[in-house]
């Protein structure tokens, strides 16, 4: 891709590099969790609330479970849920946006107004409703957040499609008689991908926050399976005795979300069309705020 050099340039800044390195390490650790974790994350023992150091790198929780092993295994769950949700949201959103942007009349109205209906739901309330109906669990989380975050993708793509459709190369393609499917998939889609990519990295961060929040409320990943949000909830109860439990679990969430945001910023700068051709920039919509 022609924008690769600018991407590399962005990554030369120490902040971006550090964020990328942290996330890379996290992802590797999560993938290799069963080998990285020194203990079974579910194994209870009588060594409760040990301080960090010694046999347990980050100490143990009130069940005598190894905190480091739980963080690493929790990363696996949390990353899977966040990427799954962001991926699903991107797929749904891009599809809806493409259809909405290239249709006329009723179809456009149905798709884009439908998106606005989803936007009208406060995310936490919507998640509460779905979890109450279908029961908590990782799959419920992915589907719920996939639906919740799809509108921001759809709107970006919709806007981009409207702009791109009037550009000469698209008209040229139309003139030479390309099928509608070909124009959509081969001509317009590549043009809308850069902002989608930026939105994707932002959505991963937001999904991670929301899934941690739901797990914290007992509506996400079901214990004893470790999840960061669940670990924060457990740590909070023991804030006075073992403040480190809370610090580790919330620290890792903050760090991960921050890194994804830094990465998204870098990506946005690298892919900013203003640095390349003179096309109107597409500002990624902020994902729904989680509050």
């Amino acid at each position, binding site marked *: 891709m022609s924008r690769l050099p600018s991407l590399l340039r962005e990554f030369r800044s120490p902040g971006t590099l550090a964020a990328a390195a942290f996330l890379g390490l996290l992802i590797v650790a999560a993938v290799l969790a069963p080998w990285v974790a020194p203990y079974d994350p579910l194994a209870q023992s009588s060594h409760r609330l040990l301080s960090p150091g010694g046999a347990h790198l980050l100490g143990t929780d*009130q069940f*005598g479970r190894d905190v480091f092993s739980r963080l690493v295994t929790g990363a696996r769950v949390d990353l899977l849920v966040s990427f799954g949700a962001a991926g699903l949201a991107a797929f749904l959103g891009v599809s809806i946006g493409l259809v909405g942007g290239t249709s006329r009349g009723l179809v456009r109205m149905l798709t884009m107004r439908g998106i606005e209906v989803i936007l009208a739901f406060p995310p936490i309330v919507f998640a509460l409703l779905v979890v109450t109906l279908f029961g908590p669990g990782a799959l419920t989380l992915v589907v719920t957040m996939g639906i919740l975050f799809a509108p921001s993708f759809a709107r970006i793509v919709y806007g981009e499609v409207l702009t791109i459709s009037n550009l000469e190369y698209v008209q040229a393609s139309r003139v030479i008689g390309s099928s509608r499917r070909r124009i959509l998939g081969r001509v317009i889609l590549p043009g809308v991908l850069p902002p989608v990519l930026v939105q994707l990295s932002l959505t991963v961060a937001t999904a991670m926050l929301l899934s941690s929040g739901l797990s914290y*409320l*007992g509506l996400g990943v079901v*214990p004893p399976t470790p999840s960061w949000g669940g670990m924060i909830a*457990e740590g909070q*109860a023991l804030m006075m005795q073992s403040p480190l439990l809370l610090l580790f679990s919330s620290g890792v969430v903050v760090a991960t979300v921050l890194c994804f945001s830094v990465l998204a910023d870098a990506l946005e700068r690298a892919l900013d069309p203003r640095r390349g051709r003179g096309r109107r920039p597409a500002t990624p919509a902020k994902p729904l705020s989680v509050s």
Partner: protein
Amino acid sequence: MRTLSSGGARSALRLAAATTAAALVLTACSGGSGSEDNGGGTLRFGLDSDVPNLVTPQNQGSASMMLNSVLHRGLVAYDADGEVVPALAERWEEEGNQVFTFHLREGLTFHDGSDLTSDDVKATFEHLRDPEAVAKLFPVAEGIESIETPDELTAVVQLAEPDAAFLPYLADVSGAILPSESIGADDPTYVGAGPFSFVSYEQGSSFVVERFDEYYEPDEPAYDTIEFQILPDQSARDNALLSGSVDMISFVGWSSYDQVENAANLVLDETEGPFMYLQFNTTPESPFSDPRVRQAVAYAVDRQAVVDSALGGEGAPLWGMPMPESSDFYNDDQANYYEQDLDKARQLLAEAGYPDGFTARMLSSSQYDFHQNTALSVQGDLEKIGIELEMNLPDWPTRLQLGAEGAYDIAVYGTVGVTNDPAWLDQMLTPAGSQNAPFGYDDPTVNELLDRGRAAADEDERKAIYDELGEHVLEQAPIIGLAWRSQAYGYVDTIEGFSNIPGFLTFDSGYTLASAAPK
């Protein structure tokens, strides 16, 4: 029997609660204190829960019991040791635990100045035995056959059958005598005959009462005012006591015990009151319909681990019958019946036809972390004998609903007896207990022993009956005791006369606020 919905911290939406409570503490701090200087002064009490619509005869949790116990009095009450003592009735006679003649004190009045007569007693008891009223004392009040009032100061209560539990139940704060005209009213009038009368209530914030000069004990209460500050968040409540913005709190958090104990001017008044237990679905579809499987669980679970992981190391393991040591019916052998023996557990499972274990549904709630953590601790232990538990941890109301519907194989629950008298066990071992009881468990032997236990008049005979019941229940194991929960009040050491009534009666401790006084 009451469920402890006001206990512990709410894990769901805890953050919001913490913020609100923190704001409350801040207001309390800046509001200026300057109390308990002259005379009786003000007692500032950090209460664990709000009671938006106080209905005295109903079971509304421990915070309502605290408010009821300062506003109201019944014919009898509990003293600091948990003994039944005269209250509005100065004395009574009973015939075979079936006919009770209560003699009221002379010159009793309610807070509004109206006279308290035997007519009010009759009206109150009529209300308690009305199934529509959902009174907490209904289990004994339904046995009332008639109430006669030969004169203004005498009430004769006739029971259909002898009931040894009648007086202990009546001493509960929900047995308070109410002005006949306020009974069944939609909005609480707060008018009673207790040591303090109502001043003001601000929802979610405060409940203020003042000394009632016509209280039947001439020297009580010592305090002019009690200001209940509603502090539902546990750490905010603990901090309010530690920082001196309140003088006394209920439900001291386990994690704050050391801090309160070590503080130079604070007292930690603790008892083992409520307890955690396992209940089984005993219907034929459940693997736990076989008593041997239930016994296997009883031998597999490490009770000390439950105390350490779920109750913050406070409280005590419960290896047998849930009977408080302070009860006259405590039996040491039955209190320590089981021990952890994984080989025996596996053997029992094999005998029951599950040599390789099985998978079952565990129900608990994520709303209270000690409920969830108890379930997790049990899950870890049962895994060792091959029983895999699938966790279902919904919010508290859903937990109660699923429990009542029997949508579980094994469930964690916490409760407290109404009295230290074992008559309350019908609320845990028979279908009358609803969600407190193991689903589908209706054992004729248990029912018969419970009936006999209440009907018997002689203490020794009753003790023998309840020992027999204990033996049967431990063998059948429809419920399995896990751990005693520690329940503590914390207060400044200048308060004397307040007492945490031991055992199940800990939530009746508000009775002793009448005799509490600043040094």
